[in-house]
């Protein structure tokens, strides 16, 4: 299979180059705009460069820094919640066979194949009665809907390859329930928690319409701020906020890259981001 012709190798190199350019291309004008002053048609590059968009974006009155903190807080809380709720469910689906298992799986995966907008409007009505609209808590709770399926999916894959006999051995040797969890179960499932948690964080991080509806415009996360600037035509500030918005994801990616290689079984089964 490896007697490839030079033509095929040249084609691969060319396709690879096109792919690299295409993957980076949409982020380039965002970065340029954030340093541009009055970049008008038909200038290919700005005539004047400036830091004023960054000065504004990082200033107190712009609210970008507050919004960044709020967005990180909401995504961390939604991730923690989906770990707490998703790990036990993943254990049940990965370790046991039981009647109605397919139905449970279908229910838990349903949010990934039913469009978000269809659920969002109804949840908004549910939350009116619960008094959760326009609150940070309500937004965290609603982010559970898109994040939970990934957490359960990853964890059930991990538990399918997990042997609970180690736990009973630890217990029979006198370890308490808590010690058994901490020294036996937790280290074994940690890779899954990291990958599932990463997906949960990124899914929550990119939510727009759920936050807009449930937060009622009072819980202003970064995507809401970004959308407002993008539709008001302030391209320079939009560029700066856009860069601020994608940086945490890139940092997390670099920190967790070794968990995300194609060899990790969890990656093959994950869902949308």
């Amino acid at each position, binding site marked *: 299979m490896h007697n490839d012709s030079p033509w095929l190798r040249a084609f691969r*190199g060319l396709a*690879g180059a096109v792919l*690299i350019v295409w993957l980076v291309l949409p982020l380039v004008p965002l970065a340029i705009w954030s340093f541009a002053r009055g970049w008008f048609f038909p200038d290919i590059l700005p005539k004047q460069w400036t830091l004023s968009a960054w000065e504004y974006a990082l200033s107190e009155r712009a609210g970008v820094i507050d919004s960044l903190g709020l967005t990180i807080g909401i995504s961390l809380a939604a991730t923690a919640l989906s770990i707490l709720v998703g790990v036990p469910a993943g254990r*049940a689906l990965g370790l046991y066979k039981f009647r109605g298992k397919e139905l449970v799986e279908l229910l838990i995966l349903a949010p990934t194949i039913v469009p978000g907008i269809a659920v969002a409007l*109804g949840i908004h009505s549910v939350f009116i009665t619960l008094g959760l609209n326009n609150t940070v808590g309500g937004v965290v709770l609603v982010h559970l*809907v898109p994040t939970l399926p990934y957490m*359960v999916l990853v964890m059930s894959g991990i538990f399918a390859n997990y042997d609970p006999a180690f736990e009973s051995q630890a217990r029979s040797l006198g370890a308490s329930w808590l010690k058994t969890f901490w020294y036996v179960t937790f280290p074994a499932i940690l890779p899954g928690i990291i990958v599932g948690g990463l997906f949960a964080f990124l899914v929550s991080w990119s939510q727009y319409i759920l936050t807009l509806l449930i937060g009622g415009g009072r819980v202003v996360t970064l995507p809401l701020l970004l959308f407002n600037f993008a539709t008001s035509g302030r391209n320079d500030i939009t560029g700066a906020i856009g860069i601020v918005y994608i940086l945490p994801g890139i940092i997390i990616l670099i920190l967790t890259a070794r968990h995300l290689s194609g060899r990790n079984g969890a*990656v093959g089964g994950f869902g949308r981001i």
Partner: protein
Amino acid sequence: MSDRLKIFLLLAPALTAIIVLFMGGLGIGLARSLNYMPVIGLVDPNFDAYWTVFTSQEFYLSFLLTFHISFTSTVLSSVLAIGAALLLRRQFIGRAIINFLFQLNLTVPHLVGAIGILYLFSQSGSFARLAAEWGMISRPGDFPALVFDPYAIGIILQYVWKEVPFIGVILLANMQALGEDYESVARSLGANRWQAFRHVLLPLIFPGLLSASVMVFAFTFGAYEIPAILGPNYPAALPVLAYRKYTDVDLEARPEAMAMAIIIALLSALMIFFYVRISRRNIRS
């Protein structure tokens, strides 16, 4: 503790969350779309909102646009992702870079991609400026409309940008798990490159491709912020239309918005059902 009780307790938090939030959201949406709200004294359900939706021309135009967006994006992304995954299986210069960019792209929210596509492809965007530089156009208006356009080219470009890495990463993980033994056997038995791909590799990676592309279809059919940034005003994509109705100053429009939300869910489920059936039949045969 019996296994049954254990399973029940382990599943209880997740099922509660899904049933209250997800099913509750759909259920209340359905009730309100039928004008059924006992709290404010509406106890006679009716189909008025559905009637209004189904008799408006805008709804059909929006549906056609949204279907076109989802169908085209899903097919294009799937085909290109298969190509990209096949490419990334081989050793060549730049492979590590593409692998990294694929993962990086997964972390970039759709909204950022949409703004990037807007700045690249709008009539005063980067490509229009390049066209002006090379003397192909003299005014922004001469550049073809690729965003806010009736064919939703900008939206589709954005989805292809985001979804090729998404499907590609899943396919690549599948291919690496499979190895190349099956194809080698087929090749040694006389199959050519295409036959080995079509009759050996494709059926093997098909389950992963199917679930990834179903997710892409459902997402692109229900996404709001991307068509809101890049889409035409009329007809708007269905989610944009539903959100507009929902936030209309006229509260009478709310049941209509709910009806649209329910129709979006049903249509999406129906289309995914047929998509799964048709593609299974075609790949397996």
